[in-house]
């Protein structure tokens, strides 16, 4: 077993076991803790796959952002000190059934696809740096330029980048931001005017 697959096994095991712990723990904050471990080791799997940018984004967005919001929500809305979630047997059965169904779909998809070994990934991107330095090609692709494709092939056509999806996502996020600010603003109370 090579070092990489050994590390992959360890992190994959951590991811799966802590995902199971999320399901089986009772208090919400413990679930969040196990979710942090699970998502963090998913980021580690991304780093192992030489996808540094995706791994860092995973850490920043899911662990640092979403989960903190989740815990915030729990802390702000909880009525007691340690909120417990007790599932009824019926819910356990339905949840287990759905989980097994999903597992079946994943396995079916896995065996249904003919996987081929990647041929020297990302080596063509950088003449000098290490494998995994995907940041600059990614950034240029978001700006609509694909020099990693266009410069290496001797064809005079230019490949399309991801400028349009990038812009759509940016505008969408801007709308969300303005919407959040609008919802959180200090509201004028109609009732207070009448009362005074």
């Amino acid at each position, binding site marked *: 077993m090579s070092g990489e697959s050994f590390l992959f096994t360890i992190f994959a095991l951590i991811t799966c076991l802590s995902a199971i712990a999320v399901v089986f723990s009772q208090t919400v904050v413990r679930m969040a803790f196990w979710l942090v471990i699970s998502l963090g080791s998913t980021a580690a799997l991304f780093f192992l796959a030489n996808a540094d940018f995706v791994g860092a984004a995973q850490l920043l967005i899911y662990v640092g952002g979403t989960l903190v919001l989740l815990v915030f929500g729990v802390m702000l809305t909880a009525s007691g000190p340690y909120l417990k979630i007790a599932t009824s047997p019926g819910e356990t059965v339905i949840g287990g059934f759905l989980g097994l169904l999903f597992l079946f779909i994943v396995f079916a998809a896995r065996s249904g696809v003919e996987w081929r070994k990647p041929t020297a990934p990302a080596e063509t991107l950088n003449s000098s740096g290490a494998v995994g*330095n995907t940041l600059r090609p990614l950034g240029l692709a978001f700006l609509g330029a694909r020099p990693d494709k266009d410069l290496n092939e001797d064809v005079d056509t230019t490949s399309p980048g991801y400028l349009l999806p990038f812009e759509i996502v940016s505008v969408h996020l801007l709308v969300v931001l303005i919407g959040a600010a609008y919802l959180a603003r200090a509201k004028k109370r109609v009732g207070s005017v009448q009362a005074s």
Partner: protein
Amino acid sequence: MMFAAQSIAEFFQFLGNWQYVVAAIVHAVLLIHVFALSPFAFIWLERKVSGRIQDRLGPTRVGGLFGWLQSLADGIKLVQKEDLCPPAADSMLFRSAPYVVCVASFAAFMVLPFSQGWVAVAADCGLFIILAILSLEVFGVIMAGYSSGSKWSLFGGMREAAQMVSYEIPLAICALVPVIAAGSLNLGEIGGMQRGWFSNWFLFHDPFTFIAFFVYFVVATASCKRAPFDLAEAESELVGGFHTEYSGMRWSFFFMGEYASMFAVCGIASILFLGGWNTGIGPLDDWLYSARNAGASGEGSAALGYLANVLGALIFVKKASLGVFVQIWLRWTLPRLRIDQVITTCLKYLVPISCFLFLGATFWPLLMATGLGQTTWTSPLGERTADEVRESRGPSSPKIEAAVDTASADDAAGLVSVERVGGAVR
């Protein structure tokens, strides 16, 4: 030859397949020492500086001169203390929270370069990774506050979480301002670009980076939960904030995490704005740079290159420690802000200021190129980019050569295309 190895992995080449494992262990052990010894030094410094500011002497006895072993004495005392867990606490979360804080601030050192090429993981998006890792620290704080089963801890944790999460936004935006000037997220590359006279430091790159440095420093102080932004720990009203219920080593882990992340954010500041491991004296820097390169490539003396790197690391640590010293100085001179003032400072002032700086920094190169015909205020248009392209070209393809040749350095469009092509090669 010992110094001739370009990396630690190469040094252990004789081990065959195990070289990477051994190299990883060596890197980890070295970084654990940085992580453990920087709090050791800074806690002593904190005591000494606070003593001087309050017209006291501070520690004088332990270890003889200046009481320099005070931190060790503190550590021995803390190890002996009982490891308490209050009955109202959620013991699993309570016990693991300090480790989350520690791991988050320790892992940040993984991508922090100490000198040219002296970095455990030379990632292309190093700055992004380090900011992402530092943002995990807040989770340990929330866990500690929530799981302690105490009002003080819960309030402290809530305040802390609100503060750290909101200060992350201006921190990231301010860190992006020098990135715009550098055109790279690779911390090693950003540091290397500021070689030469100190006017090459990104602090003096344009007025926006100059202001961004100070904004970054304020925000970094706040995100390390240091005074005047240490509302969450406010002793007078919240006892100890989120770590009220902790004692012994678990308590000290929070502080190790805090001092280590102070060092980490100041290290980032020194790389982004203050030239990293460069001395700021032009000819000396050029000489050190060539000594390092000659040592690495085997053309010159390897030992000299190694010594040049040691000097670089010392300069880097010095700059970062200076930042930590200023943070300590601020803590003992400024009064604490109220929690609403802390959040107002961030959301109403620092976020808009940093957004303005970000916009200004994007317009600055355009203004310089079209108005004055220069890349920066010191170098004429296209000079630096052409140098970079030449350096980073490596084994070049004829197509890129043609692109570089045709891209005239006289107009702004040419500048952009040279930069793009240079990026593609890298």
